[in-house]
């Protein structure tokens, strides 16, 4: 996440950030185990795989069976949030796949189950970013009082949009961020009449809005997956906007991560690193 012009150097003999990230991607906590951080590794593994296991039990491992037959390609699972927890997903596909030829009824707890498996995947991606940071920092001097850990701030930003900014003391930015993405999501839900809040209706768009975190899951639970007799007029627009809201939250998470990283390492932010005499940011030539 550091500036490409001035990358954070890894100290000699430190853990390889790429290896730590890939290990975490396959098995939550494995990257920290590789770095010798046993406690973080165990907590991460138990929390994320516990979340995934609970989701599999509640959904009876049927999240891929939601997909209509024409969408069941070889890489159908690659665009799901569960792909963030790759090892578990590969085991899942091997164990359950797309189900039997004869379709079986979905359990009543399917939707809660898929929320949990998706959450485990996204949480593991955030853990990957934490493992990458921890491996890069290694023996470098940090200033923990300057900002919360980038991984923690990012996780909070996913749980509550704008929450990471709050944690960093950027309260106005956090409030504006929350208002913008949640309002866009709410408008999407209104236009789609709540049909976007159902993974069985919009499998991949649902993945986009899952990036908004528990806000989307709470809205889905409150909406309750009612049967619809007709398609809402603006369903398409609503589904897209709610998914865009989730993806915009990723930009906010990157902002949170970069801010914490720069502050803890005492380095300039990406936009500060550019010579202000020439340009104060990648896109703001108007401020020359």
């Amino acid at each position, binding site marked *: 996440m550091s500036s490409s012009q001035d990358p954070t150097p890894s100290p000699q003999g430190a853990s390889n950030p790429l290896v730590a990230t890939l290990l975490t991607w396959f098995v939550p906590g494995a990257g920290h185990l590789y770095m010798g951080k046993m406690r973080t590794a165990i907590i991460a593994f138990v929390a994320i795989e516990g979340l995934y296991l609970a989701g599999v039990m509640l959904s009876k491992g049927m999240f891929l069976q939601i997909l209509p037959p024409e969408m069941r390609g070889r890489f159908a699972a690659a665009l799901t949030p569960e792909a963030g927890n790759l090892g578990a997903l590969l085991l899942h596909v091997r164990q359950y796949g797309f189900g039997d030829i004869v379709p079986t009824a979905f359990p009543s707890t399917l939707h809660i189950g898929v929320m949990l498996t998706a959450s485990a995947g996204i949480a593991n991606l955030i853990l990957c970013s934490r493992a990458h940071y921890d491996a890069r920092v290694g023996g470098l001097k940090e200033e923990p009082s300057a900002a919360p850990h980038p991984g923690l701030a990012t996780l909070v930003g996913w749980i509550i949009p704008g929450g990471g900014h709050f944690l960093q003391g*950027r309260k*106005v*930015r956090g409030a*504006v*961020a929350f208002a*913008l*993405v949640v*309002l*866009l999501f709410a*408008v999407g839900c209104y*236009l789609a009449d709540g049909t976007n809040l159902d993974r069985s209706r919009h499998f991949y768009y649902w993945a986009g809005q899952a990036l908004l975190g528990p806000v989307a899951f709470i809205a889905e639970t409150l909406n309750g997956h009612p049967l619809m007799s007709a398609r809402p007029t603006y369903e398409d*627009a609503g589904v897209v*906007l709610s998914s*865009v*809201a989730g993806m*915009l939250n990723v*930009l*906010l998470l*990157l*902002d949170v991560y*970069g*801010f914490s990283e720069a502050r803890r390492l005492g380095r300039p*932010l*990406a*936009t*500060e690193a550019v010579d202000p005499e020439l340009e*104060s*940011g*990648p*896109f*703001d030539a*108007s*401020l020359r």
Partner: protein
Amino acid sequence: MNDLAFHIGLFLFSTLVIVAVSCMFTEADDQKAVRLFPRRYLTFVVVTSVVVAVMLVAEHTFAAVS
């Protein structure tokens, strides 16, 4: 006409959110981000409007079914 107004309002709102979040992403300083916003918003709206116009002309010219 109401439908057109609704679509334009929806377009202006969704682009507002997209540009505002992108300003936050590219500029860590709040005041700079606020100063950047109007120009970027205007640019985004104008450029996307041109794209829409081109698409409508292309649709009307090449894909219209009489």
